[in-house]
């Protein structure tokens, strides 16, 4: 939904006028300066996002109701132990000094030591991150590779009210599957494939087959959510004036749809998909519990239960950065597909 306001409407006349007015630069120079402006603008947003993330993560400990040290050690702890922990964590210092310490640590690449394991949090993240990254990226690839062709094909086939049965069936099935949360999909996939059919393992990281179910569970809902978006955007794009122009050139269907419609579809779809994909990062956190998957998600959940604050902070920081990175990547891809988006005209 927030992505909607980022949508550059294809052929939006007001946008056209605005961009023509400041798009008078020519040749390679405009290319450079548009990308420079994009980088500058995006950098501002990036600094703000990372700043908010760091601030939010830092505030976890000071915001703990009551005395954070008591919360960590439990009410049975001796006053000496509590005082020692307060001193160790710097909780006896003013808030701003704690924040300076925290940021200083981050800049040195230190995230503190895990209360539970006594090892540096960076080590835990280094071990777990590849698993989560594999899960997230794998499902993102699946979503894009399946959803865009699927949604576009259905969109083209059912444009202008053609094939009403297909349209209704797709709407119903996609709507049904899109409303599967990842952890429910995961549970059902385990039951179907690991228990009833006994074709895929449900736990352990020993074989590549192990990644199949978690990735499938993560990708299922978003794939159909994105496919619905793509179908809808296909309708929108096909109604644009420039598509009539292309039809007027009497192009073959494949060129009409792949060369003329697809790039315009990608702009709006990717803008919307960005949030879905960032949300998919959230899904990994939960899905890892279903499969006892040794990634950051399972670890952060356990850390919250065991009040292992340094680990919580470190992992949330990493997951947040991953979401920021995906957003950035999508903006770059958008800029490559449709240079108009570089100007920030889609920023609403």
């Amino acid at each position: 939904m927030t992505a909607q306001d980022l949508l550059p409407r294809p052929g939006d006349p007001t946008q056209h006028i605005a961009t023509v007015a400041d798009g008078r630069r020519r040749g390679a120079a405009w290319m450079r300066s548009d990308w420079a402006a994009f980088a500058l603008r995006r950098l501002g947003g990036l600094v703000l996002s990372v700043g908010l993330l760091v601030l939010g993560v830092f505030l976890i400990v000071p915001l703990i109701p009551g005395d954070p040290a008591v919360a960590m050690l439990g009410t049975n702890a001796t006053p000496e132990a509590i005082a020692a922990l307060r001193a160790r964590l710097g909780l006896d210092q003013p808030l701003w000094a704690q924040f300076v310490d925290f940021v200083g640590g981050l800049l040195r690449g230190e995230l503190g030591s895990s209360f539970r394991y006594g090892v540096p949090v960076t080590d835990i993240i280094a071990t777990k991150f590849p698993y989560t990254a594999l899960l997230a990226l794998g499902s993102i690839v699946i979503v894009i590779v399946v959803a865009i062709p699927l949604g576009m094909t259905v969109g083209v086939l059912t444009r202008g009210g053609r094939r009403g049965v297909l349209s209704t069936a797709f709407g119903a099935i996609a709507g049904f599957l899109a409303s599967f949360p990842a952890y429910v999909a995961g549970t059902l996939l385990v039951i179907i494939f690991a228990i009833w059919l006994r074709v895929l393992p449900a736990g352990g990281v020993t074989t590549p087959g192990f990644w199949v179910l978690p990735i499938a569970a993560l990708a299922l809902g978003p794939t159909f959510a994105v496919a619905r978006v793509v179908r809808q955007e296909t309708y929108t794009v096909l109604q644009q004036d420039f598509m009539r122009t292309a039809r007027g050139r009497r192009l073959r269907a494949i060129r009409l749809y792949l060369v003329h419609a697809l790039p315009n579809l990608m702009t709006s779809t990717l803008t919307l998909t960005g949030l879905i994909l960032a949300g998919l990062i959230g899904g990994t956190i939960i899905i890892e519990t279903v499969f006892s998957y040794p990634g950051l998600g399972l670890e952060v959940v356990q850390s919250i239960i065991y009040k292992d604050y340094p680990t919580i902070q470190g992992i949330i920081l990493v997951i947040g950065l991953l979401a920021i990175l995906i957003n950035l990547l999508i903006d770059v891809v958008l800029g490559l597909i449709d240079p108009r988006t570089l100007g920030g005209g889609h920023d609403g």
Partner: protein
Amino acid sequence: MADARIAPASEPGAPVAPGAPNSSRPDAAASLHRRRKFAPSLTAGLVMGGALVLVAILAPIVLGSAAETLGGGSRQSPSPEHLLGTDALGRDVFARSLVATRLTLLMATGATAISVVGGVLIGGLIWLAPRRFREVVLRIIDATVAFPALVLALVIAAILGAGAGPALIAIGVAGVPAFARLTSNMVAGIAHRDYVTTARLLGVPGFRLFSRHLLPNISGPLLVLTTSSFALALLEIASLSFVGLGVQSPQFDYGQLLSDGLVAIYSQPWQAIAPSIMLIYAGIAAMLIGDGLAQTLDPGLRAVKRRARLVPSRRDTAIPAAPAALLEVRDLHVYAPNGAELVKGVSFAIDRGKVLGLVGESGSGKSMTAMAVAGLLADGVRAEAEQLRLDDMDLARRNDPKRLALEIGLVYQDPGTTFNPALRMGVQLAEVARIHMGLGKRDARKQVEQSLDRIHVRDPETRVRQHAFQWSGGMLQRATIAAATLPEPKLIIADEPTTALDVTVQAEVLRQFRRINRDRGTAMLFISHDIGVVQELCDEVLVMRSGQIVERLSGDALKSGRVVHPYTQQLLDASPRMDDPIVAREPLEAPPVNASSDRSTIEATVEGGTHV
């Protein structure tokens, strides 16, 4: 998990689309009251949701004891007594799955309330705050929205610890930024409307302005959004309970039941299936209600369309072997998707080298006529004709695309939307030459560059690498015309080609048409609502009104004002140029070098057009 928040908003022109802060939304809210015709999905969703609410109310009363009573045997298989068996503590799984509905729905309601109230207050009230403050807040909201809601929820869960209350607050607060963003977008669309400005000037206090003037006008989309937000909150809270951060034993919701079921998933899979089904059921009910609400609020979403068709009405007349006219249209009818007749039996012919003008007010059917001839009617629009023929090609049939592309040149109304924003201009302008004239990439590009050079586009090599948004409207339109003439078409159909252009550019474009007709003898069907524009260019002019031709005039007759039909006279009167002697105007302009009378009259015409 942001997907569920997005999906409903992505529906066609959904009233929640915040990117278009335009008129449709506030009206959509009102339309709910006017027409209470519920979309089928809304009815289905409300029935499903109603059943769920009923279960939430009744199940704890009826089955409460069964759900919590220990004993009866641990982990039993399904039996008539325990439909889905029992859990580790011997409690009836079926009863627990139903009883859990109440807590699940209550928590989702609580979290949604937090999201809606917090988001609407922030997103609405910042519009009453000073501009700078508003922009800072909006930037922060934007940055927050980029994070998955679940990450924000984890931060809050980490602060408050595991538990039902913390999970509710965490999911509720995590939904605030998205709601604030949307509310702000919607308020932005109406904050500067007259009625808001008036209220502001009348001194209506800030909060009252918000609650009485802003809020009611965005209530429709907010309702849709609240529904999808509720579905999401339900699934997210359940997910927190599922991983152990939410509801703690002995309380139980769907998520916790699912987590219990997962433990014994190999021996008793149905224990995991029951809460899964409940979660999916609840999610679908909320989705249906959301989609249905969106459709009910904006009935346009439900419009059923049929594909465009061109049907020859009667095939009794064979096409003459040696046709006299180049284009012949006999008894053309065009029907809108709803069956309304847009063009009511229009007949005309264009001889080789002639220009036929088609004038009339907007909605008179002239563009429909043109697009029917071009075979480019929109989906659902249907055309019928006794005869529709270009030279020896029957346009009522399916034709060789190559012939169509090479023999009919097309120029459209708004050059700003005619070109594909994602493709370079060179690709688009050279497309017909490449695909249908069989030219290689380089030859096609050279042809396009040469034709651009002929219309005095400077530096065409650079221009063809640019995108449409980097060209001016006039340049786009002149390039369209130049590209349309590249394959030497038999007929050029120009649909209001000067309407979107400013006056000086109009004159240039008209000169270009005149030159093409003079130099190449290309026949044209020229459509305009401005009778002044067509009369200089056209050999014959048809005046259309309400889908019918009301008068046929020769260009000369029109020029000298010999018109019969009062409607034509009205159109002429609207174009003040007729009573202006051209001679009197000439000194006002620098006479163009080598000015033919044609040229100066066209310019005079165009200048007259400004008064319209």
